[in-house]
């Protein structure tokens, strides 16, 4: 075990060091954003390398658990805290790519912030470390810590632009609701602990072992616990009815921050949910899967319906994110049959969304709060490449073939159908049609409306790269999905 002592948390450590490094650099060398970029880039790159290394090592020696305590008798190692498996490794890669894209796409904002930019970058690195911790944690308390690490940093990030009204509102709402959700989550953990005597997902004293070995005559407390854990995670992915914070927060926060919080947290929460639900509570699959299906259905319906009425693009994307949370919950259900479909959905949605929000940042400014859809008016003429990118992302989110979004829906829905959720698949497909109303609307505004605005927004290099990469991934995976699918098929959690 010695040789992997550092590897399971290498990514987190790297990011923390990077965050501290940036803060130090800001203190010692002043406002030199180049330094921060190098450090952050190194940290993220390191994180990515660690994830790859994990993948390789796991491929060689199989999934591992780490950081346990010795039993009282000193013999067995129990209560492992962190799992090192391809599941976490892939999660790490996706998170690194997403956060990298976000930073590249919104670096302008960091430059604008001056010295405080260092804090911003550091917070993002800290937050993403927390997110990854959520994915790899082998213990519910550990999961809680990861969740809080991610969230606390996000609360600050949401309200980072102090000089803009709405920013503080955004932070406050996020904070209050987030804390509420965290409290519900940890109370759920406590109840599960009360019912099973464990908070661990692995090992001889894990929740699963207990549930497998004992017949619960009265599972009430456990079920309440499961419900609360679900609520906590569903909140993070902004699934209905725990979604209402999202539009307000997204609207108030800076566009770059939204790109990060809307994608990273979703990745982390979905992955964590899969691990917790399947490993922890598989014996209660019949119960919680229906609960998840109901939340999914509600999210899809509410998200789609509300998004139609939006005139602010970030709010629209927030509600579309609610609908996508629903689709992701379908993916959670589908994960029982095919985990790769869930990964595919997560990765492609995250990339498209980051790309789209980067465009919003380019068009309306990275610091922008509310961004009316009308600001895209006539973009098709002024900036055709940008508009094509918009079209690609919108079609991808809508699930139109030719884009990764279609394949994502296809594999997820096929797996969900295989898993017996045909009604949910039909509902989801019909809702995606209604979703066209708002995805198409953006394309319509961009392409079909003329404008008399004169200046063409020039796309700086950073966003250009981020958008280009996102478009490339979206189209490439849309045409050649096996690239990711075959890879992700191995990304199973430690059992």
């Amino acid at each position: 075990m010695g040789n992997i002592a550092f590897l399971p948390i290498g990514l987190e450590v790297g990011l923390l060091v990077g965050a501290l490094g940036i803060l130090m650099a800001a203190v010692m060398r002043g406002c030199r954003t180049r330094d921060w970029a190098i450090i952050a880039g190194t940290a993220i790159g390191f994180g990515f390398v660690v994830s790859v290394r994990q993948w390789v090592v796991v491929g060689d020696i199989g999934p591992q658990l780490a950081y346990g305590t010795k039993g009282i008798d000193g013999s067995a190692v129990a209560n492992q805290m962190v799992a090192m498996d391809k599941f976490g490794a892939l999660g790490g890669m996706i998170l690194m790519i997403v956060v990298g894209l976000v930073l590249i796409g919104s670096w302008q904002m960091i430059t604008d912030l001056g010295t405080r930019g260092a804090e911003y970058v550091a917070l993002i690195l800290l937050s993403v470390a927390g997110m990854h911790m959520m994915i790899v944690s082998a213990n519910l308390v550990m999961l809680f810590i990861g969740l809080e690490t991610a969230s606390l940093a996000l609360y600050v990030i949401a309200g980072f632009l102090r000089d803009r009204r709405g920013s503080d509102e955004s932070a406050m709402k996020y904070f209050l609701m987030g804390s509420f959700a965290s409290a519900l989550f940890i109370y759920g953990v406590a109840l599960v602990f009360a019912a099973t005597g464990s908070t661990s997902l692995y090992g001889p004293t894990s929740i699963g072992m207990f549930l497998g070995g004992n017949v619960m005559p009265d599972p009430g407390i456990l079920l309440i616990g499961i419900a609360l854990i679900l609520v906590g995670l569903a909140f993070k992915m902004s699934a209905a009815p725990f979604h209402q914070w999202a539009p307000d927060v997204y609207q108030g926060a800076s566009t770059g921050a939204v790109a990060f919080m809307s994608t990273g947290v979703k990745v982390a929460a979905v992955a964590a949910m899969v691990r917790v639900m399947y490993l922890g509570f598989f014996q209660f699959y019949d119960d919680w899967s229906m609960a998840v299906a109901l939340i999914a259905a509600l999210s899809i319906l509410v998200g789609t319906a509300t998004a139609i009425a939006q005139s602010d693009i970030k709010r629209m994307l927030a509600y579309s994110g609610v609908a996508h949370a629903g689709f992701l919950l379908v993916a959670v259900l589908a994960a029982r049959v095919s985990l790769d479909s869930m990964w595919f959905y997560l990765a492609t949605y995250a990339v498209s969304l980051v790309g789209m929000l980067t465009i919003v940042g380019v068009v309306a400014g990275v610091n922008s709060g509310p961004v009316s859809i009308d600001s895209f008016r006539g973009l098709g003429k002024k900036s055709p490449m940008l508009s094509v990118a918009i079209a690609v992302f919108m079609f991808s989110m809508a699930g139109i073939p030719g884009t990764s979004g279609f394949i994502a829906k296809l594999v997820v829905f096929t797996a969900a159908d295989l898993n017996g959720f045909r009604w949910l698949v039909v509902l989801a497909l019909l809702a995606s049609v209604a979703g066209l109303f708002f995805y198409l609307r953006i394309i319509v505004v961009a392409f079909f409306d003329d404008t008399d605005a004169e200046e063409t927004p020039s796309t700086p290099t950073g966003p250009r790269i981020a958008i280009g990469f996102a478009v490339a991934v979206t189209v490439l995976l849309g045409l050649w999905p096996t690239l990711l699918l075959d890879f992700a098929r191995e990304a199973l959690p430690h059992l």
Partner: protein
Amino acid sequence: MFPVLAFLVGLPVLAAIAIVLIPKSRSELLLPVAFGLSLLPLAVAGYMVWTFDTAGGFQWVESIIWMERLRIGWTVGVDGISLFLVALTAFLFPISILASAKISDRLRGYLVSLFILETGVLGVFIALDLVLFFVFFEIVLIPMFFMIGIWGSSNRKYAAIKFFVYTAFGSAFLLASIIALAVNAGPVLQTVSFQWNDLAQVPMTSAAQTWLFFGFAIAFAIKVPLFPLHTWLPDAHTEAPTAGSVLLAGVLLKMGTYGFIRFNLTLFPEATVKYGKWLALVAVIGIVYAALVATVQPDIKRLVAYSSVSHLGFIVLGTFALTLSSVQGGLIQMVNHGLSTGALFLLIGMIYERTHTRKIADYGGLASTMPIFSGFFLLAVFASIGLPGLNGFIGEFMVLIGSWQTFPVLTVVAASGVVLSAIYVLWAYERVFTGPPGKANKDLEDLNSREIAILVPIAVLIVFLGVYPKPVLDRMENDVNAVISRIEQSTNYERPTFDLEGRLTVDVGVPEQGESPSGEGSE
């Protein structure tokens, strides 16, 4: 073996790339290059028609499974049912490009859209993998959406969104059904498979057939479109630019009717026999209803759009009548409708470029100012109302004669479309072309040589297919027979025989099923 079909579908993609690569400074090259490139798929399609083995069955099959676990992949092939739809598609695109000479705004994007559209449509007709089919089926929406939305006329936004959302609504059912179909077949096949070949062999319970049949049918019915799901079509047609209308009517609608034959008939034979009559009923209602509605349309494009709805009803009626003649007639009617309605939209586009109005009331007396134009128009009009000697007749006649045996009452009602179509078409012709030319129309120029060059190939085909459709029918016959035979084998359905079957005392010139007739004095 050379992957002909991949090549065929790939050509437009390459053409689109080539168009993108033409430098901005040489944009005058866009149109000629695009036209030249669009001839390549036509050449391939021509080669395919030429070398097609009339014995039928899928030819030029390529099968590469990409996603082994779900058995999704590039499985394509062409049989007698799809052959001429491929050919029609390849034929209409160069014409559409030529007809787009007046497009100046964002021409590059326009041409790229056209080529992507071509890829999509060709893909639909060759795909033998349900997911691949669906991908192409949906991809087609995107370029069409842009064509209507960017290069359309005044109410284009509404029409584009309506077109997209309405058809996507049907597609949602289609995708759900495709997934359910594959999942249902999973236990039998030991794997989830989206291969048409695999799925066509899996027997299904009648309940499953019913659900899936209607799932597929909704999507195709919207695409066709069948009454009462047709209202997106007039809007889309009216607002689309000329090439858009041509392709919409010419090939896009055929994706629905083709889907009926390729999927509903082969995959769900029992449900087809059981519920086909309802679709036939809807189709017949559409024939009469759309014809009625067409008569009073004030907008000439809307009129033709409704006439499309009416004519496509014949195809669907023939498809579900399940006789050799009716299905074959429906198939050839797809080609014929593509030609004649395509020609009509081209012509309307030409007059619109001159007058900038589509209101019938604004025209009048064009026959004296534009004799060549009116001549072509008359030809297209008569082709579309099924005048013998022109192509429209073949399909309509075969459908009606063939369908009678299965659905006598429906067919009689459908036949009344023959009268109604004459009414709306000739009345419109009267108002547009005859009488003394009004002031506004006195100085209109007749067609120029480019426009004539666009129309001549269509006119030639209209006449040729009307007079000598045998090359086409021969290539279709065996595969259509195979489709019906499959239904006969898997259900209790039997092809209707004629009343005096076996009682004829003198049997002259009656062909045996599947054999070609041998008459005396054959050359």
